């Protein structure tokens, strides 16, 4: 038995039949998860594509100017104009829509999870291996079940992105809550704060810079999933990269990748300065 020449634990078969069983029996459940993502995504996508590019550039430049300064503002204008001239405007808007909708859901799910694990040790030790798994499991492993459960396309891409991008915001929210000095919580309680008041008047405001760092990380992780999501038929800036890879078109793959990097730099700088402002 211990010469290990043949497989004795057919775990792969079990998992396959488990996924088959899930797909057969719980389609309604997964459709239920898919629905809000689908709505948000199409709303964002249609919205971004309907707005004239120059207006979007102006708004982004304004946000960059208000959060960081004139330098980032100029860089943003240059980067977006450059991407537009490369012919990737529409792809960029699709990518932004995908990134924003996954970040929206990561925030909605992640901040409450983070707050709870910041307050409850047991819950945190329960969450930790799950978050580790979400971050370290190679994305290719869960692409197949995601395709089986949600079929291919942008929505499946967003769901895969959520899985990958959720952990940082949960972790950093929990860290932020834990870093609040216990004396401050004690002081609030001594003056008659309810537990909700402690949360909203002390813990969250003081954890905000850390939560913002988590948001920044989540956005960056979401952007890094763009190409992988393209493998399951998601559009956006990942598509030219995948196409370039498949057809050995180095030029196409490179300009696709370059556009992703430029967008990443702009979003990173903006959210970072948001974080340091709330500090």
């Amino acid at each position, binding site marked *: 038995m211990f010469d290990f020449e043949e497989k004795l634990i057919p775990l792969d078969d079990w998992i396959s039949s488990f996924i088959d069983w899930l797909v057969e029996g719980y389609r309604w459940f997964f459709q239920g998860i898919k629905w809000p993502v689908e709505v948000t995504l199409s709303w964002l996508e249609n919205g971004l594509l309907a707005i004239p590019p120059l207006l979007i550039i102006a708004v982004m430049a304004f946000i960059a100017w208000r959060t960081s300064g004139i330098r980032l503002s100029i860089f943003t204008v240059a980067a977006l104009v450059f991407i537009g001239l490369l012919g990737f405007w529409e792809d960029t808007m699709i990518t932004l829509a995908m990134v924003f909708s996954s970040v929206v859901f990561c925030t909605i799910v992640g901040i409450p999870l983070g707050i709870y694990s910041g307050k409850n040790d047991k819950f945190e030790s329960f969450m930790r291996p799950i978050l580790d798994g979400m971050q370290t499991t190679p994305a290719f492993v869960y692409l197949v079940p995601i395709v089986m459960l949600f079929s291919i396309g942008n929505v499946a891409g967003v769901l895969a992105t959520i899985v990958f991008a959720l952990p940082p915001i949960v972790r950093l929210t929990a860290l932020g809550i834990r870093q609040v*000095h216990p*004396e*401050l919580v*004690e*002081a*609030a*309680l*001594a*003056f*008659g*704060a*309810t537990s909700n*008041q402690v949360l909203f*008047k*002390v813990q969250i*405001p*003081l954890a905000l810079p850390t939560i913002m760092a988590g948001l920044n990380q989540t956005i960056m992780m979401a952007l890094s999933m763009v190409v992988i999501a393209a493998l399951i038929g998601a559009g956006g800036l990942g598509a030219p990269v995948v196409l370039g890879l498949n057809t050995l078109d180095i030029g196409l793959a490179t300009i696709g990748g370059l556009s992703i990097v430029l967008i990443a730099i702009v979003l990173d700088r903006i959210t970072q300065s948001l974080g340091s402002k709330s500090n």
Partner: protein
Amino acid sequence: MPEISVKNLYKIFGDSPERALKLLEKGQSKEDIYETTGMTVGVQDASFEVEKGEIFVVMGLSGSGKSTLVRTLNRLIEPTAGEVIIDGQDILKMGKTELVKFRRSKTSMVFQSFALMPHLSVLQNVAFGLELDGIEKAVRTERAIDALKQVGLDGWENALPSELSGGMQQRVGLARGLAVDPDILLMDEAFSALDPLIRTEMQDELLKLQDRQERTIVFISHDLDEALRIGDRIAIMEGGRVVQVGSPEEILQNPADDYVRAFFRGVDPTGVISAGDIVRHNQPTVIWHTPQGSPRATLELLNNRDREYAYVLDSEHRFFGVVSTDSLRTLLESPPHDAKKKIEDAFIKEALVVKETEVLQDILPQVASHKWPIPVIDENSVFKGVVSKNRFLKTLYRSDNNSNM
């Protein structure tokens, strides 16, 4: 009725406090319980009362349970057993909402580490308790500005706590405590983090505030000088127990055990004991403008009683002067012999009074430089008695013995 009354209060930290409580009842010591069960006894059978309007100092070394004790008074720490009655209500029986209401209206707290919210301005910090209570913005701003004025920080409303020095930050902490206008102010080592000069300044500030508006203050300290300076009464804690409660003079003169005695070793008793504590009413007194108060009758009285000095009072027992057999004799023998002599002409000019609140240190020069026992009066100039050299030295000898045993 006392404002705060604590009865047989216990706090045990650990997973099964009930078990530790039983072991304590069986007479096991705190150390044994820690060794066998790993549980820590924070407060053990504490009972005391705090009167309305007094500054009650709880003193002990670190680890004596004093910070735990003060936190049981507003249930920041949940006691294991016992009673805490504040204003007739057992706060340990309160539900969640009652407790929140109690904390908002009855008590407030000042912390050693200041515990100011770094994201709020000074004004917002001071108004914090009022905001929690849902008090309208205009009102709470007004009350917060008033509280800042009381601690001498007007003009700093919009600064952030991080821009202030330690002493100023604690003034903000104090103002935050005052803004909610509590009956009871809990101060947990409030001045311990400040440097000595600022600390003394803050103690004076607190006493000044207390003069204007009497609150019940429970003040935690490990600093004996501080306790003696501001405390009306002191409770001494050791290993979770309250070993003695009393006024500084009482504790200094009759320490309950060696621990308390050791605590007070090195304390200069002349800075604590006041003239009123050792005054004796054992000298002859005469009433001015009465037949018995004439120079001749007074001299006779002194001769009969074999005393040297008499103290002249008016009919309201206010002190007027000291006469001696010598000064009376000189007066009576001076010409003209037949004229009516007034006793005030026999007053010893250098005989000054001391107030009963003055401490021994302050009256020492008087006691040392004059032969007669020094007269002591109260704030209405009423004669309370005298302090003799003998009495003075005996007091010193006794407290010295106490602290060296």
